[in-house]
């Protein structure tokens, strides 16, 4: 017995009814919670080889008893997905207004469902819509959670995006425990994330070496009172090296803190005031920061999660 379908989707009622009861429907998709969607199978077959095969298997041999809807007598294909996910998925397949689910969890489930049915084009379409979300679906505050879910769903792209955002958090057991992140991640997923952070740090260390000797780092201020062997201010050298150890230190606040510690006199070190760094122009800092950001970005983009991570739990 099918249920009447009500969804908290944002799509217009006309679009919803179009998806649920298409005028040219020749097949019924039934969700695990017994919602039925009457759709033209050509859309489904074109979108998904997996569902195409499923529909074909329901159509052969021609004379055997095929489950049909008692009212419309259309063949029924039962799926393991929920009605809420299916209606959203169908909105990306049938020419109606696409309807993204409202929660991050459902969005990831939708992506997983599209991936499961090998709907490559639909998957791209969903990801395009997700990318236009404001606020973004994957943010700094939910990065660990999304990483965990995406890994469980086997969504590599989302897992990588989330993993990149976790770089803004100091990766230590103590900090993660204090932030409640150990409640989100299993040891296996955390281990994979830690390995990812390690690889990013290694990449950063390599890129920073070149940056400090050849890039903007080498040109920032030759008049500093304390230069390293490569003629870069020592405080800057130390700051950049600290990013290679802990990428979460890559932000302007930390940079200015490092500059302040060096340039502003303290009661203990009045004689070590560096007038040259203290009056460094905003332009110089902006130029330097942009160059450093490019290097960091380059390093991060070159590293991704291991493809062999055995984290597909679903």
């Amino acid at each position, binding site marked *: 017995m099918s249920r009447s379908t009500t969804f908290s989707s944002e799509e217009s009622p006309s679009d919803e009814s179009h998806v649920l009861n298409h005028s040219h429907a020749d097949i019924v998709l039934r969700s695990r919670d017994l919602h039925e969607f009457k759709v033209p199978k050509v859309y489904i077959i074109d979108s998904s080889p997996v569902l195409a095969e499923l529909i074909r298997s329901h159509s052969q041999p021609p004379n055997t008893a095929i489950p049909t809807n008692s009212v419309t007598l259309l063949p029924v294909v039962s799926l393991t997905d929920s009605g809420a996910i299916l209606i959203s998925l169908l909105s990306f397949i049938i020419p109606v207004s696409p309807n993204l689910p409202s929660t991050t969890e459902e969005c990831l489930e939708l992506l997983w469902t599209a991936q499961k049915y090998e709907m490559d084009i639909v998957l791209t379409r969903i990801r395009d819509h997700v990318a236009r979300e404001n606020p973004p679906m994957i943010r700094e505050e939910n990065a660990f959670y999304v990483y*965990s879910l995406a890994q469980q769903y086997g969504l590599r792209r989302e897992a990588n995006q989330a993993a990149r955002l976790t770089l803004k958090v100091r990766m230590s057991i103590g900090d993660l425990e204090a932030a409640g992140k*150990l409640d989100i*991640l299993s040891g296996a997923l955390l281990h994979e994330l*830690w390995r990812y952070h390690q690889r990013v740090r290694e990449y950063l260390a390599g890129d920073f070496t070149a940056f400090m000797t050849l890039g903007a780092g080498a040109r920032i201020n030759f008049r500093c009172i304390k230069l390293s062997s490569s003629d870069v201010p020592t405080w800057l050298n130390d700051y950049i090296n600290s990013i290679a150890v802990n990428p979460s230190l890559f932000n302007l606040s930390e940079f200015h803190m490092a500059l302040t510690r060096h340039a502003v006199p303290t009661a203990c070190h009045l004689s070590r005031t560096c007038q040259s760094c203290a009056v460094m122009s905003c332009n110089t800092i902006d130029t330097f920061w942009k160059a450093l950001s490019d290097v960091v970005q380059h390093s991060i983009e070159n590293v991704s999660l291991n493809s062999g991570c*055995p984290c597909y739990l679903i």
Partner: protein
Amino acid sequence: MSLLFDMTHSQAEADLLIEGEMQSRQSRSSDLTPNILPPQMQNADVVLVSSDDVHFRVHKSILSMSSPLFQDMFSLPQSTDSESIDNEFADSEFVDGLPAVPFSENAEVLHNLVTLLYPIPSVIPGDYDKALALVAASHKYDMTTVQSSVRAEMKSRDLRPLTSAAIFRAYGFASAKGLTQEMESAARLTLDFPMTFESMGDELATFGGWALRDLARYRKRCRDGLVSCLESLLNHRLPPSDIWAGCHNTTFATIAWWLHTLLSDHIRKLRGTFTHSLLKPSSMRAEYLAALQSHVNQVGCTFCSKVHIMHGEAFCEEVEKNLLKALDGVSTATSFSGPEEI
């Protein structure tokens, strides 16, 4: 009793990552597996098939006596072509006309298990990981007597993981297998090592469910217990520290300053982070002696020298006892939520 060679070797496919990890470590640390001679019991009526396809011909009655799980399994009406107690055994077949029961354990674990069921020389590995795998197998198949025997033997041999990696691995494995006793022992041993990504290394990958979170919680409780104990030792009005009130070189009303400094330093370090290795109760005696010696050498304190001669030994014992009590008092039940899947 005859021993027959009946072995075929194929790549075992572990059912769980953790099990695969454990077994691969075992095969790395031992060359025994390919040479195992599986006991072949006369008049056997069932074949146990290890994950690496070694066959063990045994008796249903023996298995039934050792395990209610097998008792139930063999008391069920026999299917025509297979034995099965759950999905794990769903793919069972016949071997030489006998029903075959596939196991996810490798031949070495299964061999050790079988030797504990029959009146033949039992084989309990000397390697902690392997012994733990045997405990896990006996736990899984509800073989309480076997499990007790293995645990008793491990205790008598003082078999325990020694390195940081081995300890964290043992914790992860025991946690995943629901071996509460071993999990708690291993958790206690981890306190002597930093709890960092570096110290846990690849062993972290074997931590299933909330094992890592639970270990962190347990460690924090232990840390809090130690801090509380050390704070009580700072009280110059209460034993055992009251004997140190009166040092002439201590200007404020408290215990001797060198001891105060020693205890305060530990409190500060412990409060700073729980991820460093925690204070070992047994190390306090040496630290006490070093601090006292330094104090006496610097200021020639006769008060502290006398107190040490009269009561130093008893004080150290009391401190160590109190610190151990603080750790023992940490309720593991509230720290460990047990095996669960995320």
